[in-house]
């Protein structure tokens, strides 16, 4: 067995890539491909994943993989799916594994087109809340009051003032049969959702919270923990929507305040520097509370 064969034998996404220590994306991708198996073609738009997994002469990919441009992952995938259909290769499936910058922002038109056409593509967004590949610039997925390099906190600013784009709802509004969120904090759940998504046809969407030690500012060994705190404070709802209706929710066992999440990350540090941040922390708590209410995230005792 050759070295590449051994590598492929062990995992369809191999180690040795150039991701930062504690990268949530690399972890997510390894488990995505464990769930899909080898009969997939992966399209990855420009971003962290493309850069760290494909330096010329090396590749982490044990499945056929293409990177084309930043804003066209969905349309390249539509073309791949059409080609497979023309060749009657029904058993080969198409995945996009993209970042939030290409998904929420620059490729938004293309993803809408792909969804509207009903193309048979599983679109997976690994969301780390900013353009991390280029140093952490603000994206439509950056959380409210996070400090990014293009919308930094400063004497006159507390970072991003807008709400994060609600992409799962937008995707669901296109009539996508399967929309779900997941987190690297719960890898079995992530794999289960990928497997479930692979069972149906048409455009499906999975958004994975992938904490980023470098961009968010926490030690690399805390990736999974940060992911869990985000879920348990209500800011990162984990759910499934099938045919427009919520069919499963990861309940919060014990609700924790958003300050536990915010204090753990440098991108929110400015909120604790002086009194200015207090109102904004309260706003973020309100966002989490709304999310808890909207998605019914709190586990109630049977007596209630």
């Amino acid at each position, binding site marked *: 067995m050759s070295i590449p064969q051994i590598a492929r034998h062990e995992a369809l996404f191999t180690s040795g890539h150039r991701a930062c220590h504690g990268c949530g994306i690399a972890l997510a991708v390894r488990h995505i491909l464990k769930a899909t198996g080898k009969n997939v*073609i992966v399209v990855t738009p420009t971003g962290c994943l493309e850069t760290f997994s494909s330096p010329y002469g090396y590749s982490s990919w044990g499945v056929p993989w293409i990177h084309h441009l930043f804003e066209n992952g969905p349309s390249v995938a539509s073309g791949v799916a059409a080609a497979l259909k023309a060749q009657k290769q029904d058993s080969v499936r198409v995945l996009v594994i993209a970042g939030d910058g290409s998904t929420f922002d620059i490729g938004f038109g293309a993803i809408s087109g792909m969804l509207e056409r009903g193309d048979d593509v599983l679109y997976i967004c690994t969301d780390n809340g900013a353009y991390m590949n280029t140093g952490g610039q603000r994206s439509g997925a950056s959380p409210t009051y996070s400090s990014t390099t293009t919308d930094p906190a400063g004497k006159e600013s507390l970072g991003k003032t807008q709400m994060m784009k609600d992409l799962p709802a937008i995707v669901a509004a296109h009539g996508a049969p399967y929309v779900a969120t997941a987190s690297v904090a719960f890898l079995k759940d992530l794999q289960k959702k990928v497997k479930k998504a692979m069972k149906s046809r048409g455009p499906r969407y999975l958004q994975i919270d992938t904490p980023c030690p470098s961009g968010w500012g926490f030690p690399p060994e805390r990736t999974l923990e940060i992911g869990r705190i985000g879920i348990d404070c209500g800011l990162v709802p984990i759910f499934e929507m099938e045919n427009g209706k919520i069919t499963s929710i990861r309940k919060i066992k014990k609700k924790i305040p958003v300050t536990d999440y915010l204090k753990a990350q440098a991108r929110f540090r400015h909120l604790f520097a002086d009194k200015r941040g207090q109102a904004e922390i309260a706003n973020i708590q309100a966002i989490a509370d709304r999310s808890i209410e909207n998605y019914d995230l709190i586990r109630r005792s049977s007596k209630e």
Partner: protein
Amino acid sequence: MSHIQVVEGSEAVALAVKACRPQVISAYPISPQTHIVEWLAKMIADGELETEYIRVESEFSAASAISGASATASRSYTASSSQGLLLMTEVLYASAGLRLPFVITGVNRALSAPISIQVDHQDTISLRDSGVIQFYVESSQEVYDTHIAAFKIAEDHGILLPVMVCMDGWILTHSYEQVSFMEQEEVDSFLPPFQPVNFLDVNDPKTLGSYAEDDVLMEFKYAIHEAMQYAKGRIKEIFSELAMVTGRDHGGLIEAYRTEGAEIILTAMGSMVGTVKVAVDEFRSEGKKVGLVKIRCYRPFPFEDIWNAIRGAKVVAVMEADFSMGSEGAVGMDLKAKLCGRPDAPLVIDFITGLGGREVNKGTIAVIVQKAEEVLNSGLPLPEPCWVDLNPAILQ
């Protein structure tokens, strides 16, 4: 065996594409490209053409979708025009770099602003550096034949680049002309099924579109340059091979028209060539030594063939419907750059004409030839660039 029919230029394109058995078509409508993609859609709706047709939300996605399809071993096609071609620009550079051999019809139309739907070559000329092979055609017959050849050229293992067939909007797309069509068996034996080299295959997983550092990128770009150089010879062979089947020879990279003994040679591309040929015939009957080089293939730039045709001429008047703002026309620049330093080089004058649908008629050509004669007699170049037929009233 072939059959002859009077068809719209757009239908001739659609029939050529159909005969090439594309597996995936993706398109977004834009005037004056629309009829081509409508004809193809109708063929599919009527069950005459079996292909996957992706109706995308933008030209950017049209080019992207056929790139994905081409990378998945499918013969793929799109068409666009003007702003749509510019929106595709980023995709075309990347697809040339990925060596994806699809075919695209570039229906020539002016670029905004001011917005106009009329013809000129600014749109496709703007893509000259992308690594896409470009042909410019004169008639519906040539547009049909060139599309058949285009897939074979693109898919040649020594080339593997996108090929764009550029045709003038309205003048060619919306005119009805007599076209001689090949039989399907003739096309099938000329153009075998697509045999890609590197493609997305679960049985042999490959990584396409890697991240390149400073140690490899130059070599990738040089490889495209080498493929372009190789293509010059291969394109001529493929055109000859097609001419053997059809009995129609439109020339190779260029067509030299009455250049023997010519003192003044015009160069032109696209549908204006037909008018120039008539004008050249008239000049010749008046005893004026005027000839024409029709540039069929613009990228790769066929300098060697042009040089063979213009050698001995005193003046070359380049007629072109494009302009590089702040400099001059693209074809003129190409030709002058290649002639620079040759002691026997003719004087080259660049004439900008026909922008935004401005008619290029025999009167226009007479003005150009008259100026060329002034240069011929004086031996001195004209102040350039020479914009022809400008209306001074509008300029004020």
